[in-house]
């Protein structure tokens, strides 16, 4: 294998690992007191003891709730083949209860090889669900309902939730309802009658600690000898990796990453960037790669937009900032033009442009979201009259003016005036 091919193969392998949630979160399945084992216990007890259960998984996005649930279900399907059947719903897609019931009927039909009719009404689907639950209960088969984006099901009348949780109360059924939500107060959103039928078992998925993140990095990045790559390459890669992981600077990088966002998905984005920067000749990770990956993952969009402004746009921003500093309540394009004219009269700048050129620059700033309208839809008024507010702060504007290459000194002076 040529060197480039090896590096490419390694990249492919690592990228497959990073984008595969089941590989990433299998790291967490080893711990005995983790969410994985609790969840497994809940669902398996329903299978073995033929009882009904419901649970709610809560945690910020990117902490592995669905991934761990999938791992648990996979494990259990291996242990009890043919006794578990899974139905997946998503609050974004099936928030409407009619839609949700149709989707449940469709998935049940698919699983059990029945003919699905698109024309069935809500009542038909509902009775179908009830009879399926009864049949599965009699056959000792557990139905697992996975409700992703659970908080979106709680909008409206919560008819679907009530029907599902009510069905669990009957003796003949054998089902588990698992809700997954990124809102930490998802259980407070339930109606009284629904909440009374819910078992209030909650599993919290929180950010992993810094050491866990380090160990997860090692788990993802280390190559094993049976990965199809030449052994000497694997050996060099791994030794280099272990050396890096022990390095204080690398730990510092991971900590900086975790300050902003300690979720696993953020770490995965960082690792993805690092792997894509892997040098195609040597194919070895180095500290520089991780440093540049950190820069790319941590972005400051407002500063980027400010650096892209033309000089006229900077003038407009400084004018509006000055008007804000003078505590004028509302400012719109016309009042900004007045201020602009007064600056031109005071300082005799060469940058005095006509009204429509300024209007075009004003609209650029609106597109970049450095300015925004204060009223919602505008009630048909044109851009010149609607009140605007500035979305950047003094320090940001100051920094942008300093780093702008050809910023006129007038603007610097105007910024200094305010601080004086």
């Amino acid at each position, binding site marked *: 294998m040529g060197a480039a091919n090896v590096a490419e193969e390694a990249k492919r392998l690592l990228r497959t690992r990073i984008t595969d949630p089941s590989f990433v979160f299998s790291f967490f399945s080893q711990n005995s007191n983790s969410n994985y084992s609790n969840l497994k216990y809940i669902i398996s007890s329903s299978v073995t003891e033929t009882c009904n259960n419901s649970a709610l998984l809560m945690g910020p996005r990117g902490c592995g709730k669905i991934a761990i649930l999938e791992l648990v279900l996979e494990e259990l399907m291996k242990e009890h083949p043919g006794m578990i059947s899974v139905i997946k719903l998503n609050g974004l897609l099936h928030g409407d209860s009619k839609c949700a019931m*149709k989707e449940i009927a469709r998935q049940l039909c698919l699983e059990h090889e029945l003919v699905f009719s698109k024309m069935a009404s809500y009542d038909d689907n509902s009775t179908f669900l009830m009879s399926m639950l009864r049949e599965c209960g009699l056959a000792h088969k557990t139905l697992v309902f996975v409700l992703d984006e659970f908080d979106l099901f709680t909008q409206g009348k919560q008819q679907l939730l009530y029907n599902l949780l009510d069905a669990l109360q009957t003796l003949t059924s054998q089902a588990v309802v698992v809700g997954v939500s990124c809102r930490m107060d998802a259980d407070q959103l339930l109606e009284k009658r629904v909440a009374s039928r819910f078992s209030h078992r909650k599993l919290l998925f929180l950010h992993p600690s810094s050491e866990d993140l380090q160990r997860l990095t090692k788990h993802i990045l280390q190559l094993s000898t049976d990965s199809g790559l030449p052994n000497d390459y694997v050996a060099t890669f791994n030794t280099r990796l272990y050396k890096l992981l022990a390095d204080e600077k690398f730990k510092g990088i991971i900590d900086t990453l975790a300050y902003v966002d300690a979720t696993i998905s953020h770490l995965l984005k960082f690792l993805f960037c690092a792997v894509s920067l892997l040098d195609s000749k040597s194919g070895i990770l180095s500290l520089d790669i991780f440093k540049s990956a950190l820069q790319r993952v941590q972005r400051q*969009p407002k500063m980027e937009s400010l650096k892209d402004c033309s000089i006229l746009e900077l003038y407009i921003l400084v004018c509006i900032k000055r008007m804000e500093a003078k505590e004028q309540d509302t400012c719109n394009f016309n009042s900004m033009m007045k201020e602009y004219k007064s600056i031109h009269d005071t300082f005799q700048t060469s940058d005095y442009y006509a009204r*429509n050129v300024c209007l075009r620059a004003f609209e650029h700033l609106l597109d970049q979201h450095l300015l925004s309208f204060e009223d919602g839809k505008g009630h048909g008024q044109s851009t010149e009259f609607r009140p605007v507010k500035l979305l950047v702060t003094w320090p940001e504007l100051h920094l942008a003016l300093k780093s702008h290459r050809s910023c006129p000194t007038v603007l610097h002076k105007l910024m200094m005036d305010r601080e004086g």
Partner: protein
Amino acid sequence: MCEDGTPKSSRRSARLSSGASPDLKPPAPPKAPKLQPLSVEDLAFHGEPLSLDALIASFPARRIQILELISLLGPLDSPMMPLFVYGGASTGKTSVMLQIFRHLNRPFVYCSLITCYSPRILFESVLNQLLLHRACESSRYASAKRCERPSDFVNLLREALSNLVNTLKGDVKSETTKSKTSRVNGNMIYLIFDHVEVAREWDMSSSVVPLLLNLRQILNMPEVGLIFISRASLDTFHSDTGFAEPFQVYFPAYNEEELRSIFMRDRAKSKLYNAFLDLVLPPFYRTTRRVDELSTVFTPLFKKYCEPLDDLGTALSEEVKRKLFSHLQPYITKYMQTTFFPSEDLSNDKSAMKNEVVKKKIAAKKEASEEIGFHMSTSARYLLISAFLASRNPATLDGSLFDSTGGLDNRKRKRKASEKSMEKKETKEQELLMKGPGTFPLERLLAIYQCITSVIDYAAEYENADSMEAEGCNNALLPNIHLQLSSLCSANFISKGGSCPLEGSTRYRSTISEDMALKVARSLDFPLFKYMYRS
């Protein structure tokens, strides 16, 4: 609707065709050429492959971004995280993305949220491309599948994608003797969604934007790559419960050297153009950094720049350059104050013999610029002027401006106002101008309209008219008022506000500028200045 959901539009036969006699045969429609059914290879670019060097050369300032995107897309058949490419307008995001796919020769599906302006059209467009559907006349250009709801979209998408991926995998395995250029690379399909920022404004935005950005989680297929292109950065996408953040790539705006290399891209040998850019780029760069806006201005300017040169191949000495610069200078200052092409300026015409023709032309041009440019009936013009006055003047002033006979009130003011109250009045007037045109109810508009039109001299138009007829003509204008008003509203000269529950009636607002109102008034010989609150 039949089982699989394809729409069948019912056709109403026109009376003519149903009543047509049976012996008249309708002319046979021209035979449409038989189009080949689409295949997977149509999802990638056809034709010459593009090498990496050619790709980088065709985008002068985008080397870093191109290499970054290629490294993020990764080697063949490697799964990827969703990408979010953002940057200002006309920074080359879409074109770079598409040319990268031409270079890599991988199959992709592209749809822009500007052409697919509603969720249903978006879903159907993506599915059409994935199902390799060709819209033809026989099915009335219908889509392959009718899809309105996100849940249907996801199910159909999953089905279509897995079919396509299996076809691709099957292609790779089968022993075909097709040449390399006709086959696409890899087993992965990439979905490119362009102009994602407009989805924020859609009514269904609360579900479309999170749906698109969470699509990877929902689909859960590693063979699908998602790419989003947007003009706004990700932090402007507000969502109640958030979404899984894709990986962001930024396209910064061009700086001065990069703009120069872009404009010189096809004219590398032209010293003339280089000298031209030296003159125009620095001043125009201060107003805008967008390539499209700059090129709109540079094209006519370059024509003006080359005017004094008899032979474009003459060598550029300092003297020639100075001459060209002095010729161009007034045009630069003129073009700096405009955003589009200014009207032609004939005053610098060299030939003295054509003076009279030139003067006539100037006069004609002046008149043309003073005209409105489209036709409006007289009553519509008066209505427009009344609306402008109603928006411009505060309602309390109506009584003093229009006296009981409808004419302009010319009473002499009794006292001269003091300095301070004049100042206060001025600031108040300025504030009113800043705030923009005010709203007015329909009754006020009609009152002003009647006041204005009652003083029109109809006698000049109708030679045999007596006063009764003149009044009759005046009254004849009234029934059309509501029609005129609604047509002015739909032309956006007057905007209609919502009805206030306290006041009950709808309020209108005039949206025309002062220039336009003056033009309309001049065409009617109406003294608008006398009626305006502050001229």
